[in-house]
């Protein structure tokens, strides 16, 4: 790219240090990814088993119904928690975010139309619009929509990171696919979602079985672990593919002991392997609860390493063009304090509501 195409930074100073916004960006994105993984992976797993299941009593259909009941809150919170990182990324990376999204403007807007279709399909399935056997088809609509959205997100994200491709994409839209990291990134996205959703499903089936034993739950839990195991195994291979698809200079930075990038990568990879080992030993998820929970904790810890690593990689990609650490700052301490108090208060309120509802429902059951 001609560096002159990079838009000028808005002259208004940041109202707090860039590191704080970075922390908020990464933190809220982490929460968003958890919900998104359950929604995306869950919709694919649910649609797959529901479509394969023959008859409404088939365990695959039960699995589909279980995931369907989770999809509407998962999608609601995917969107809600996605708004915060969208805000912070626009603050820190406006100079690359806007050009990239404008260049693929209709595709970017199309994401919302696809999301609307996928989201309403969940309710159409729940209300059995189109007949009692229609749910698997609606679930497939949701899954296809979310898989398509994942592709749009990957394409736009990579375009933000590679300003040198902007002019080519502006001339020919097909150039959008012309980056070697796109396919491994997309697979990374999908496999991660399948792993998280699979494990979540297994744990949930286990919990439900403890409350109301039903032969379908062990079946669901075993399928959940299998999905997580297969996805994590493939993720290992794909992760290495993605690493070596990165620009050479960036790969060198990651591999040559750069702090904190190299240790974060090493920790993430190590935890990924640990998750794989724990999952491979979980043969009976309902009886091997500690192993199952250990795998879940390990996967969560992997995400805790990989999400900040993703942010570090973005910084490496965009340096020296965009360096938020160098933006002018004029801290607005009063509003910042109010935000932090309300943030904590808001989380506490949501936590309180959930706890009260769960307690009352347990008491009445």
């Amino acid at each position: 790219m001609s560096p002159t195409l990079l838009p000028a930074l808005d002259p208004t100073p940041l109202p707090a240090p860039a590191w704080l916004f970075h922390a908020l960006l990464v933190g809220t994105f982490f929460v968003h990814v958890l919900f998104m993984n359950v929604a995306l992976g869950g919709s694919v797993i649910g649609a797959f088993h529901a479509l394969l299941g023959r008859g409404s009593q088939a365990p695959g259909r039960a699995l589909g119904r279980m995931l369907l009941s989770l999809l509407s809150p998962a999608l609601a919170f995917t969107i809600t928690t996605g708004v915060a990182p969208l805000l912070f990324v626009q603050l820190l990376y406006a100079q690359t975010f806007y050009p990239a999204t404008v260049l693929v403007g209709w595709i970017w807007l199309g994401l919302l139309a696809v999301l609307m279709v996928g989201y309403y399909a969940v309710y159409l399935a729940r209300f059995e619009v189109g007949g009692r056997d229609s749910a698997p088809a609606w679930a497939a609509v949701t899954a296809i929509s979310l898989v398509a959205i994942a592709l749009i997100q990957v394409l736009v994200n990579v375009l933000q990171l590679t300003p040198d491709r902007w002019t080519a994409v502006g001339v020919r839209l097909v150039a959008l696919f012309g980056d070697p990291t796109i396919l491994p990134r997309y697979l990374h996205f999908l496999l991660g979602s399948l792993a998280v959703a699979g494990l979540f499903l297994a744990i949930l089936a286990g919990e439900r079985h403890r409350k109301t034993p039903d032969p379908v739950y062990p079946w669901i839990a075993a399928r959940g672990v299998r999905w997580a195991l297969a996805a994590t195994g493939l993720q290992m291979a794909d992760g290495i593919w993605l690493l070596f698809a990165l620009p050479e200079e960036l790969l060198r930075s990651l591999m040559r002991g750069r702090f904190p990038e190299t240790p974060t990568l090493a920790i993430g990879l190590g935890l990924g392997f640990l998750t794989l080992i724990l999952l491979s030993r979980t043969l009976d998820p309902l009886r091997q609860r500690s192993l199952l929970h250990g795998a879940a904790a390990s996967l969560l810890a992997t995400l805790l390493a990989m999400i900040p690593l993703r942010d570090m990689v973005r910084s490496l990609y965009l340096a020296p063009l965009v360096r938020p650490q160098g933006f002018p700052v004029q801290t607005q301490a009063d509003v910042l304090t109010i935000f932090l108090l309300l943030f904590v208060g808001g989380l506490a309120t949501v936590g309180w509501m959930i706890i009260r509802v769960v307690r009352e429902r347990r008491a009445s059951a």
Partner: protein
Amino acid sequence: MDYPLFLVPTIGGGWLIGIVAILHVIISHFAVGGGLLVVATEQLAARRNDAFRLAFARKLSTFLVLVSAVFGAISGVGIWFTIGLVHPAATAALIHSFVWGWAIEWVFFFIEIAAALLYYGTWEKISRRLHLTLGWIYFAAAYISLVIINGIVTFMLTPGRWLESRLFWDGIFNPTYWPSLVLRSGISLMMAGVFAWVVAAWLRDVDGRRGLVRILSGWALGGVVLTALGFLWWQANIPAEAWALLFPGGALLRATFFLGAGALVVLTLVVAGIGYLLPRGFGVAAALLAVLLAGTVFGSYERMREGARKPFVITGYMYSNGIRVDETERLNRQGFLTKARWASLGVTPGPLAMGEAVFRGQCQMCHSLTGYLAIRRYVEGQDAEGLTALLEALRGGRPGMPPIVGTEEEITGLAAYLAAVAAGPAPAPAGSTGGAR
């Protein structure tokens, strides 16, 4: 401007924002007023042990979640997407100034969605007391979201003391903050009343619903009164130039003003007439008509509020073509194209090409060549010399239009380009096709 341009064929980017924003605000204001209506109905019905109204409240909560938690949430993100595409510079400026405002609003949005889903999902599954608490939390969070966003939305038309101080609170509590809050509170009640009519229209017990429809009509009419009072207060606080775009004969937004006012009057007649005098006329058609009229009232106001900012996107700070007021002098000296680098992409050297680049970067956000606000219509029959004089005169701007900015060479080039546009078939570029340039 500094960014590539997102071209929207036929209607232009402003209308794209308008359509997405109007659809969203109708739903989001319904979410606020509907939240209050549903929880208040439940509370009163539970106290009186009124099973019919409890069932209605439950149905209304389902409708609320289906409409607001899905369409409302996605269209809210849609506003982010569209303003970022059409007005990236203005969006970046707003975010730099009000990121904490939006972050606080997001906290309440998060609480709102969590409370809405819990409220909807726990009817008859938890104690009434806890269920009502969830409902009140939902409404409070939704209303506080409105209280915060109202500050940022009104700021764009009346930034007030922020222009000098650049202080967050000066921007939020600007001259139209309180009038707009009254107006939007009224709209929330009005939307709740008419959307609740839709839900009531599906109730089978025709006799039982009559009293309910009267109450809902009261909500809508209360909202209408508050909306009208808020509007009068709002219009008294907007700049004279903005009012001049709304009301007098020949004003740019006069038709919108009368459309909104007319819809408000008809809505009042429909709601009062059917709600109190002709209950037999109540049904799905009447309810949908009321929704359409209320949507027209609100949509007209939003269009007026957006349009009244012209020639600015943020009054006194940034023009609608993304040029900041404080950079016009520099651009006149150093050249507009030093800023609008994207506009020069793919343009061959020469004065005509320079003019085309200036047109892309400075005019095309509002004017297409032959479609929406077609520039050809304005320049037809004029030659380059006459257009140069006209453009030089427009350096001082005109009502609703930003001043022309650039060096003499750029203005001459723009005039040459516009003369070529006036003369015949559009010289290849922009305007008639979608996509980014």
